[in-house]
């Protein structure tokens, strides 16, 4: 065996550690020199507001080639500008370039006066009102819904309750089957006294939820990330990119207590949605009523909403035109990863273009298909990958 001394380069160790200290000082100076961290810069106009909700319509510089507008519905947790975090990493800009007519909901920051808002208020109230506003503006009976994460769950529920208003449904990394314990949040939520949480806080602080997210990878998210950041701290643009993500991560609205109570108890703890037992207001949510085309996108390495929570939706819907799409990456990568810009935005745009016509097109369910789905049996579904040329073709 060699002498242990030969295995270590002590001088180099000391040099490395002192370099980190130097970078730290330099990094702090550079951080202090940043004036503004701009996010969500794609031009848009406010077209509707109700309480704290705002509905925006993105300005389309080019030609709209997809006639049916798309409403983007983000989760209540964190902010919707994730989809337009910076110009070169923007699903919004990508979809606009591909001829889509886009609207987006900003749910706002609930305060104590919003503590009584229920799941019903969000879905059959705010979301339904936004859909009606867009239908009226566009002169269409139906619009496209694109829901992300919890927003995808909301869109799924909405589509089951109001199928007559939804032309196509796109769900991105959205949980529907909460029985899994694959994701830590799913496991932890099952042992949480939600009533005590809501009764104590009324509006659950965003910091509370953030602390849970940080606990998922405490060493990576609290140490490695910031040490790694020191390597790029002298590059202003890269530093700004880092700060934009930081801004998004820690820009966490509080959660209206009653809505969170029902979402946590009925979905995370009792898994009522997938079992067909969830009630929103006085209505039962039957996912078999999702008879419009469905594009369900999940991320293979999603640690927040694991594939086991997203994939089962396709087994429960009433449509035969259902596409399950696997994105090779994690939850956040779906929105901001460079791969997602090249892959997902074109996929969604193409899929929607293909289903844009009246009495839409290629994959309309036949009566047999629909019946089969309603008996609970699944129809063969198409699983697309980026290599699927037909799907990636941009009109």
């Amino acid at each position, binding site marked *: *065996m060699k*002498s*242990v*001394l*030969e*295995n*270590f*380069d*002590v001088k*180099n*160790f000391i040099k*490395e*550690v002192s370099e*980190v*200290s130097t970078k*730290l000082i330099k*990094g*702090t100076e550079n*951080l*202090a*020199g940043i*004036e*503004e*961290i701009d996010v969500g810069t794609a031009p848009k106009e406010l077209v509707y507001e109700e*309480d704290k909700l705002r509905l925006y319509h993105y300005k389309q510089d080019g030609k709209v080639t997809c006639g049916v507008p798309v409403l983007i519905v983000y989760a209540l947790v964190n902010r919707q500008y994730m989809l337009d975090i910076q110009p070169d990493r923007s699903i919004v800009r990508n979809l606009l370039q591909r001829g889509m007519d886009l609207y987006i909901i900003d749910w706002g920051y609930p305060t104590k006066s919003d503590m*009584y808002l229920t799941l019903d*208020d969000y879905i059959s*109230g705010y979301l339904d009102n936004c859909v009606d506003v867009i239908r009226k503006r566009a002169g269409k009976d139906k619009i496209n819904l694109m829901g992300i994460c919890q927003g995808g769950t909301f869109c799924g529920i909405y589509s089951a309750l109001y199928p007559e208003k939804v032309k196509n449904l796109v769900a991105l990394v959205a949980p529907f089957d909460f029985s899994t*314990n694959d994701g*830590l949040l799913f*496991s*932890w939520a099952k*042992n*949480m*006294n939600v009533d*005590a*949480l809501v*009764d*104590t806080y*009324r509006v659950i*602080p965003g910091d*509370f939820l953030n*602390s*849970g997210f*940080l*606990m998922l990878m*405490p*060493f*990576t998210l*609290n*140490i*490695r*990330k*910031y*040490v790694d950041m*020191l390597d790029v701290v002298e590059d202003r643009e890269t530093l700004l990119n880092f*700060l934009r993500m*930081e*801004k998004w991560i*820690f820009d966490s609205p509080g959660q209206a207590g009653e809505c969170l109570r029902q979402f946590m108890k009925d979905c995370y703890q009792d898994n009522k949605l997938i079992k067909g037992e969830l009630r929103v207001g006085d209505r039962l949510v039957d996912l078999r009523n999702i008879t419009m085309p469905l594009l369900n996108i999940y991320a293979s390495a999603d640690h927040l909403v694991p594939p086991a929570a997203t994939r089962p939706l396709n087994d429960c819907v009433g449509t035969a035109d259902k596409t399950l799409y696997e994105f090779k990456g994690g939850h956040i990568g779906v929105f901001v990863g460079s791969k997602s810009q090249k892959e997902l935005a074109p996929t969604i745009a193409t899929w929607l273009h293909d289903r844009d016509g009246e009495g839409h097109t290629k994959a309309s369910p036949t009566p047999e298909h629909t019946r089969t789905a309603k008996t609970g049996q699944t129809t063969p579904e198409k699983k697309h990958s980026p290599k699927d040329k037909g799907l990636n073709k941009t009109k």
Partner: protein
Amino acid sequence: MERMKDYFDSWLKSQEQVFGNLTEMTKKYQQALQGFGGNVGGMPGLGGFQDLYNSWTTSVLHALQGSGSADINLLKETISKTLSGSNAYLKLYEIWLPLLKALQERAASPDSYKDMTDPAKYKEMLDRLFGFDPTLDSRITEQVSKLFETLAGSSQGFTKPWKDATEKTLKSFPSLMEGHPEEFMKIFHTLFSAFDSTIGRTFHVPAVGKDREKIELLLRSLDDLSVYLARKTEYEHMMYVTGIRSYEKVIATVADKVSKGEKFTKFDEFFDLWLDVSEKAYYALFQTQDFSKKQGELLEAQLNVRQHFFKLMELYLYDFPIALRSEMDDLYKTVYDLKKKVKSLEKQIVEAHA
């Protein structure tokens, strides 16, 4: 006229005193409970490290204040977190130093590596990472007992037995916990019962009314605090054990590499190894039902303390001309119901016109 002025001066002074006392009392309670809010869900504020950060970055942040940046809080937080992350890096180096020195002096064998690590320093690093405050327990008991004495209008140290017993039990708690954790909740309930049936009897004097309610709530709060402290200790113990075990695994990995003659040229290799092994170890812990259950219990204990705190404050603030939390809840409910009604009526009007 002069007499009237004197009267109002005196009244004003007494009011100032009342509000002064109230402010002081609230401040005490807030200080006592500060630790709970920041760490709900078991995850950190930065604890004592925040203080270090505050002093270290004062000059930078002054400059930042003057820059008029719209995102000053985010920048401030990012600096704080960067400092925190880097500190962990430097701390790890500090922990490794004795080992490196021994290697340089050829004084170590792979088997003796782990004896050269200072567990106190390692614990300190874990405390910072997870936002644990080692002095929190004694500060809570100290401040809360003072507060309760103030609230109970007592200067006779009624809560001292509880405080002393709790502190004593807490000291022995981690070692006792190695055996049967479930038994230790009983210790705290026993403490409470002992307190309630001896010194606590003094509080049971008023038969009915608000005073009785206040005192019962005070006692209830002591029990809540005991439960919270027990849960917290249990939770932290689990986190420390995982941290130490993962650290031992890192050392074992290093020893294994050394014995195979592999070369370490960069400290970053240690750092990466430590991060990877630790992250995996904690992930494995977090996945267990036991952790999920204990985390849920800790949260519930925190929430109970908070809920009783809010109720207590309501009882004590009842006579002041301010809106109480429950009254605001009622108000919000009325506004919510009315808004809903108005929206529904507006919709009906639009539909009728269509």
